[in-house]
């Protein structure tokens, strides 16, 4: 199991040192890995009114990645294959499940009007982000230009959601495969 050690860093947020985090090569992992923590305080998302929601002792940490080029499973020794690239972008958070529209893309103009919108955070140059949330179910999408994007759905057609539970951090990856060929 992934182990986290979390140290409170300043009043605006928390610096998270993740020891032994198995980055691996996960993609679209939405089932998540929840981990106990005792002292974590994650900064809440910023709302559309530019308000910073309160710090929380549970939430989501994640990585935004993009895959490109030929990704067909092979034994070909092709060194030109690209590796997942981190994406620095805005992360949108909605409460509950959001029904998909038959596409991974969801126009920002539409999404921003959705009543379940909670707020957003951003991923850094390594594609990593963290956000403190009250316990509950959330849908998390990454922004690409004028669209939000999440290529993971449930059997009823809704976007895959994330469960945040008390005093635990849920780990996800948001992978864009639009420019990859399998």
């Amino acid at each position: 199991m992934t182990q986290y050690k979390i140290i409170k860093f300043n009043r605006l947020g928390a610096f998270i040192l993740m020891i032994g985090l198995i980055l691996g090569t996960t993609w679209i992992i939405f089932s998540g890995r929840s981990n106990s923590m005792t002292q974590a305080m994650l900064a809440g998302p910023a709302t559309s009114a530019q308000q910073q929601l309160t710090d929380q002792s549970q939430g989501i940490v994640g990585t935004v990645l993009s895959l490109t080029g030929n990704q067909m499973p092979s034994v070909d020794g092709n060194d030109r294959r690209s590796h997942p690239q981190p994406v620095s972008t805005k992360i949108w958070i909605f409460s509950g499940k959001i029904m998909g529209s038959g596409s991974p893309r969801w126009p920002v103009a539409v999404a921003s009007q959705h009543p379940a919108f909670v707020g957003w955070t951003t991923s850094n140059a390594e594609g990593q982000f963290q956000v403190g949330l009250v316990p509950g179910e959330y849908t998390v999408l990454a922004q690409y230009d004028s669209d939000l994007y999440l290529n993971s759905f449930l059997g009823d057609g809704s976007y895959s959601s994330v469960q945040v539970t008390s005093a635990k951090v849920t780990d996800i990856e948001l992978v864009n495969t639009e420019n990859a060929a399998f």
Partner: protein
Amino acid sequence: MGGARGAYSRDRNTIYLAASSLEVDNLTGLQGTLIEEVGHYIDTLLNPDGETPGDEGELFRSVVLGNALGDAELLQVRAEDDFGVITLDGVAIAVEQDNSLTSARNIGTLIGTQTFTDFVGSTDTNDYYRFNVTATSNFTLGLNRLSADADVQILNSAGVVLQSSLASGTNPEAITRTLTPGTYYARVYPFWGSTNYNLSLSAVPRDSAGNSLTTARNIGTLSSTQTFTDFVGSVDTNDYYRFSVGTTSNFSLALNGLSADADVQILNSAGVVLQSSLASGTSPESIRRTLTAGTYYVRVYPFGGNTNYTLALSAPAVPTIPDSAGNTLGTARNIGTLSGTRTFTDFVGSVDTNDYYRFSLGTTSNFSLALNGLGADADVQLLNSAGVLVQSSLASGTNPESITRTLASGTYYVRVYPFNGSNTNYSLSLSASPPSQFNSTYGYGLANAAAAVARATGQTTPFASVPDLGGNNWGNDLVNAPEAWARGYTGRGVVVAVIDSGVDINHQDLRNNLWTNSREIAGNGIDDDRNGYVDDIYGWNFGIGQNNNNVLPGTTSSGQGHGTHVAGTIAAANNGIGMTGVAHGSRIMSLRMGNVDNSGRFTNGGSLAQAIRYAVDNGARVINMSLGWPDSPELRSALAYAASRNVITVSAAGNETQSSPGTPARYATEWGVSVGAVNRDRVIASFSNRAGSNSQMQHVMAPGVQVYSTLPGNRYGFLDGTSMASPHVAGVVALMLSANPNLTSAQVRSILTSSATRLA
């Protein structure tokens, strides 16, 4: 009172006495019984809350009467010997009931020797053993190690004594006789005193068939069906039968009625094995082949356990078929202009060494030939009008022969001939159809299930259109799968192997459409079906160092979820959840090639050739390979092997925008099918490898952009790639085979390409 002499009821506070108590002497009869039941009464006074271990009445009687109890008796009384329950005055009462036939120790089927140690005496006057004999057997009973006189009997199922042994004193007892199938009892009882004993029971089924070639049961000349019932097992490891046939005959063998795994072989007069049948478990065995005149042996032998069996043998003479095909080019059977499919049945062998057929083509055509129904090895050739060889098919044994190629207009001959003079009937199918226009980009065009499945059933016109499903099922619509579903063809009965990164076998849309190996017992560490793979229930992981039966995606890298996406496109259930597979009635055999890193490479890829052979040998009719692999002789040999068994390999063309397919798709010039990707507007995907310049390349197109399918963890998602196009075609092939399981590899390739919708 069920054999009891007395009983004490706690509920009624009453001692009951059987009338038989008065018929024996005072100490063991009325007096002893009364004392014993008083003992039980005292027990209830001291232990009002319930029964305590041991027979208090027996102990009380022994103390009062001053009877010494032997060690064995004491052990038994301490435990309890109230074996029976009777109902008196409406309440159940435990009683010290005599052993009887109904309470006999059941030892089940007696094969070989079983030994029992026990005690009989004043407190246990009968020991009964019940057993079954399933085949006429030589039965022996031995009773020894006696310290007092005891006797023994064998009784039939009605309790009638068949034989007794009444040796005096402590001399051993013995019974030997033949027992026919049925239920029997052995009774051990004291004649005087009490004694421990050692009882051995043995039943060895009679062996009507010899255990070697030289002692084989000779059944003479075999023609019509003869049936034999016998036994093989630990005490009879071989049954041989000898027979002869006077002329070329269609030999048939069936081994049924098995209660344990047994196998069977046919051998020639020199004892060389000609053919074996090695079905697993109690599945019937069968052998069918043509035998020339001579002497043969059948060997029946156990694989594990003991079993009776019924062996049926027949060898009717091969009927003489009129020779409708000439023996030379000049006398060839002229079938005129070949259009569509024509089928001919005939014979070649030692007395008819050549069958020639002559046909003509009015225009360049896709030609295919299939030779089936062989009882012995025969080969086939295609020759041009001058008698010059164009192409041969030289498959070994009774494997089907096939030739598929494009032929220019003109006259041609087909020659069928026996290999090594073997005699065989055959069924020859010849078909010719105008070729689809081969295109270096799109190959033969977009796979079309409505036309291909119709052709598979012998219809020349495609199935009628049905409304599109729309939405994320656009891929099914593009290959016209719903048109085949509407006719009842969903891939049912067809196993599709997905050689890939593993499959989430727990996915809600896949778990009910998985192939499982019914001949294997899960988790017992034994290769039950002897296919070379232990506990391969869901398939196999061929990743090097990972041969651990784990077909689930092993990592969370992008490529590791790949196989689940591919499997969903083929066979995701039509259940209103997520999406629906092209052949949702088919079943997925998952063959995982190893771990995939975050660049899509197998880090420990196993042998693709072995995976292909596994799929073929374990019942797959279609193999999807959405992967890239290095070329090797082993891989080519495996692809050829699949084709020779009429298993269709469907391979993704590759995603490098190359002018021709990569490996293994490139071998679709000879075996299987190559698949490129188009988008929903039927335009080739920018990444898709092209068909190339060789029209022998059986290359078709299928949806491969924004394909929605299953992902591990009950999820779904969109992916692009020829990996997504290939399973659409694998699904179409499964639909074709569910409509006509007898299609050969050559016929599937020909129908698939000739029925494809032209794209340009």
